């Protein structure tokens, strides 16, 4: 999904570069992950896929020919075939590992839980570290001369942007946004843009919207700069790439909540911490996409450039970077979307703006007010996304030769247009000034809080319990907790710890490689060592249950939607809204419907993860090779036969990706579920933030990282070793 989790990941194939390949085995397996992650972000990186080919070495001299010849469907079938006999072979060493682990297990008898002897209690040192930071924040040189300046710079930048936005007034800002959108994408987007900003004003959220915009502008700019630099390093040097990749991978699966505590500790509550948390959260997708774009730049063009005698730098600036421009723009887009979602979550640490309004509304259980602040966020997201999208398309588009005929006209046309845009915006701002309406006029606001609250009240009143036949939501919640969550949690917590390690290893091994298995087992072991075994398993049980529900619902919806383009069109705005609406907004109605506890956390997670699953699956299903479908139809296959025998198997990479996304997204929300009684790790993080308790918060955060890694690794689509 776009908003909360960066959606692009490049293939992490350790044997990617440097090694020669035997002629005839040009490895061109289109990386499902690559494409799927990007499609999750509603983009197409097919070009990237096509150019994926080892290019440093070309043993047979005919690489380019083969590159095009063998870029076909993913080798799903081949993989399955490989899989079955490899599985048996791979599990053999695992048995050996089991033989080694069992004596260890016997050495620490007792219940299933992680043995206390193997755990490390970090609360002492962490608590002291936290105290030290707070005590020395105003005296230690590190803070005075480094963090202090960072913090200062952030404050100055945000203030500058904010002042400009306020000075431009609502007329100026709206006009500028509309004009920019118009120049980039045409009149339709321009109108959408103006409508969106007007809506922000109408909802009485003008000032918070500007605050969020200011914060976003600074954070996203910084994130893009940092990400681009990292991506540049990784894209140009395979060694840096290898070093950076695990870090980026890890940051990708980290729930936003886990970033907050360290930032608060260093910078204190407030805008600097919020901006930096946003930067840290939004930079990885940019870095990843930059690296991907640079690495996947058309080898032929680069070679041509080299053959003309270009220096390394000339090659970078004239060929490599321009070739990667689509990915770069996609990266900027992703950075914006992740930044926006983080800017909301960061309200917990004093980001202010729209997020803060949502957060404050929640405190008084005011869904209506929360929605009033949530809608501008969705609108901002939609407008920014579409504009960036349009900019990307414009870059890729072929210009109209007639219009570009004359050199002079082209240059001046561009400058002239830009100048006009700015002038018009300034004129609007001045007009606003003269009319003395720099802030949105208060009389023009439309209160939506009350009707929304009435609707929510009606909904909870009528659905909570006593609904005939199906029972109320409270009953569902109780049943889900009693029949699914409880047995799962009890089972996980009762299972001896070493069997869980083995299980994680086995699953990861079946799905991926030795490396995957090792990461998974180490991550799980780290959770034990950190001393949060039980709460982590509790969280895990919630994640598993929610993922199961998400997948069942998501696949069902997607199978339905994939059949008709109309259904997909209708679904798209719904999915957009679900993905960009801050999770905070629907926590409260969920509590009203499902009560306090783990069930509402799981429900919120399902709502949040569903759109991504539906989107990826629908796309996977509708992109199934039409020839295969036609063949099936010509053989007289029924619709269900087509679905089960052709569509689903062929869409396997997309389905696997959907599972992976579901897991990552569900984890993110289950953590936030700590706010509605989800307990476990989420509660620990909330507690850590609320009490400034580094020991609890940081340990829980680390456990979440491990859990995220574990879940990500065991759901990663199989890769050839």
């Amino acid at each position: 999904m776009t908003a909360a989790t960066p959606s692009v990941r490049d293939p992490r194939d350790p044997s990617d570069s440097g090694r020669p390949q035997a002629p005839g085995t040009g490895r061109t397996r289109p990386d499902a992950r690559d494409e799927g992650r990007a499609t999750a972000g509603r983009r197409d990186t097919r070009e990237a896929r096509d150019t994926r080919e080892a290019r440093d070495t070309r043993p047979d001299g005919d690489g380019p020919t083969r590159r095009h010849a063998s870029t076909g469907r993913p080798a799903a079938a081949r993989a399955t075939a490989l899989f079955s006999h490899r599985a048996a072979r791979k599990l053999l060493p695992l048995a050996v590992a089991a033989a080694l682990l069992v004596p260890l297990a016997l050495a620490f008898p007792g219940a299933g839980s992680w043995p206390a002897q193997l755990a490390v209690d970090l609360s002492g040192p962490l608590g002291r570290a936290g105290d030290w930071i707070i005590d020395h924040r105003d005296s230690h040189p590190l803070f005075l001369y480094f963090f202090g300046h960072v913090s200062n710079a952030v404050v100055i930048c945000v203030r500058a942007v904010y002042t400009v936005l306020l000075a431009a007034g609502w007329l100026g800002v709206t006009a500028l946004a509309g004009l920019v959108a118009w120049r980039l994408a045409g009149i339709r987007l321009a109108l959408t843009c103006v409508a969106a900003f007007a809506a922000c004003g109408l909802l009485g959220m003008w000032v918070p919207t500007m605050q969020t915009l200011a914060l976003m502008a600074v954070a996203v700019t910084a994130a893009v700069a940092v990400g681009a630099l990292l991506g540049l390093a990784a894209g140009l040097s395979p060694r840096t790439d290898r070093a950076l990749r695990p870090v980026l991978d890890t940051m990708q699966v980290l729930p936003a909540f886990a970033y907050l505590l360290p930032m608060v500790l260093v910078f204190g509550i407030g805008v600097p911490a919020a901006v930096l948390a946003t930067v840290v959260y939004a930079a990885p997708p940019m870095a990843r996409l930059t690296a991907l774009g640079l690495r996947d730049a058309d080898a032929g063009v680069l070679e041509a450039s080299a053959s003309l005698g270009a220096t390394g730098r000339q090659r970078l600036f004239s060929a490599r970077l321009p070739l990667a421009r689509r990915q770069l723009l996609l990266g900027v887009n992703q950075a914006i979307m992740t930044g926006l979602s983080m800017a909301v979550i960061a309200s917990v640490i004093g980001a202010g703006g729209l997020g803060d309004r949502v957060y404050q509304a929640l405190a008084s259980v005011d869904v209506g007010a929360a929605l009033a602040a949530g809608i501008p966020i969705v609108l901002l997201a939609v407008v920014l996304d579409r504009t960036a999208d349009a900019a990307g398309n414009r870059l890729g588009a072929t210009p109209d030769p007639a219009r570009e005929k004359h050199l002079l006209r082209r240059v001046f046309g561009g400058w002239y247009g830009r100048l006009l845009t700015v002038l018009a915006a300034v004129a609007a701002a001045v007009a606003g000034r003269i009319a003395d309406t720099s802030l949105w006029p208060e009389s023009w606001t439309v209160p939506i809080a009350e009707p929304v609250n009435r609707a929510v009240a009606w909904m909870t009143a009528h659905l909570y319990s006593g609904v005939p036949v199906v029972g109320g939501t409270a009953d569902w919640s109780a049943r889900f907790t009693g029949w699914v969550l409880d047995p799962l949690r009890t089972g996980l917590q009762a299972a001896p710890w070493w069997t869980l390690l083995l299980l994680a290893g086995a699953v990861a091994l079946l799905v991926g490689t030795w490396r995957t298995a090792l990461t998974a087992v180490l991550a799980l072991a780290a959770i034990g060592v950190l001393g949060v075994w039980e709460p982590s398993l509790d969280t895990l049980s919630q994640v598993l249950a929610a993922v199961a529900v998400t997948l069942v619902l998501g696949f069902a919806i997607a199978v339905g939607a994939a059949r008709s383009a109309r259904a997909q069109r209708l679904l798209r705005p719904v999915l957009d809204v679900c993905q960009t609406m801050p999770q905070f907004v629907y926590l409260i109605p969920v509590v009203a419907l499902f009560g306090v506890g783990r069930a509402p956390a799981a429900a919120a997670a399902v709502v949040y993860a569903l759109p991504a699953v539906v989107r990826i699956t629908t796309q996977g299903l509708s992109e199934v090779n039409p020839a295969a479908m036609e063949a099936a139809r010509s053989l007289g296959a029924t619709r269900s036969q087509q679905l089960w025998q052709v569509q689903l198997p062929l869409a396997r990479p997309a389905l696997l990706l959907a599972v992976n996304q579901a897991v990552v997204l569900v984890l993110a929300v289950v953590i936030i579920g700590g706010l509605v009684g989800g307990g476990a790790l989420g509660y620990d993080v909330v507690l850590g933030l609320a009490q400034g308790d580094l020991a609890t918060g940081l340990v829980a955060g680390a456990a979440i990282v491990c859990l995220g890694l574990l879940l990500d690794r065991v759901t990663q689509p199989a890769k050839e070793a």
Partner: protein
Amino acid sequence: MPARPPRTVRPPRTNRRRRLAAALAATTGLAVLSACGAADMTRQSSPYAAAQGAKTVTLSVQSWVGAQANTAVASYLLEHELGYRVDTVQVDEVPAWDALSQGRVDAILEDWGHPEQEDRYVKGKKTITPGGDLGVTGHIGWFVPTYFAEEHPDVTDWKNLDKYADQMRTPESRGKGQLMDGSPSYVTNDKALVKNLDLDYEVVFAGSEAAQITQIKQFAKERKPFLTYWYTPQWLFERVPMTEVKLPEYKEGCDADPEKVACAYPHTPLQKYLNTRFSESGGKAAAFLKKFHWGVEEQNEVSLMIAEEKLPPEQAAKKWVENNREVWEPWVR
């Protein structure tokens, strides 16, 4: 072959390198220059503050509605009577102390007692100055709904709680009775209490006050029994009447060791705290906030408007201010 035309050649590489070096040096120089001065980030205000040159006060809003009521009324008066611009930031209690010490927040209007923070900031660093009583006395306790207490009067003694554990059971309470706690940021000894009083109950954290209130209202609508951690003054009592369960009596120092607590919560006179610098140089605003003092009924009146009538805090404050001139007039004088 035709002769090669003369070419304008770019400056050679060394030249470019030199330029790069110069740029680097300039950047470093700038960095060093700016780093010459120490930057104390504990003395930074919010970037949104004073954006248009106005005198600005930043107030911390805690997540419970009572605190919102304080802030709303104080903001309204500061803005409309004293001509300040007010920013509010919602922060949890402990981080709010930190923010107050840094000066990112100028005042906390309702504090329920954080001895550790008081030691650190008020006595140690002296960055925070007490701002006097708010006028409201807070009390934390365990509550059951009054409709249930009326049917079963003996439930109001903790000794009889186990008898009702069955009725208080929920899917989350692991087969025991449920004692619902709220936000993890609130002051609570409940886990220790349940253990030390040997009760057949499980503490379930709602995770946030919003979730807890929603759940309580839902229970009340169904007229189901429940046991919850709650506190007064709180507007929810007006909607869901609740009766306190008697716990072993509070004695000075009985809650000294958090592990061994086995007594009720104390009655706390709620406190205001101001950033020291603001307190000294905050002019009228600081003086006003020090004088801000009201009672339980007044606070609840505003809270109720905010939480139940869903009035925006400013409007609730406006309404209250219009009707209670005699109460607030002394504060602004």
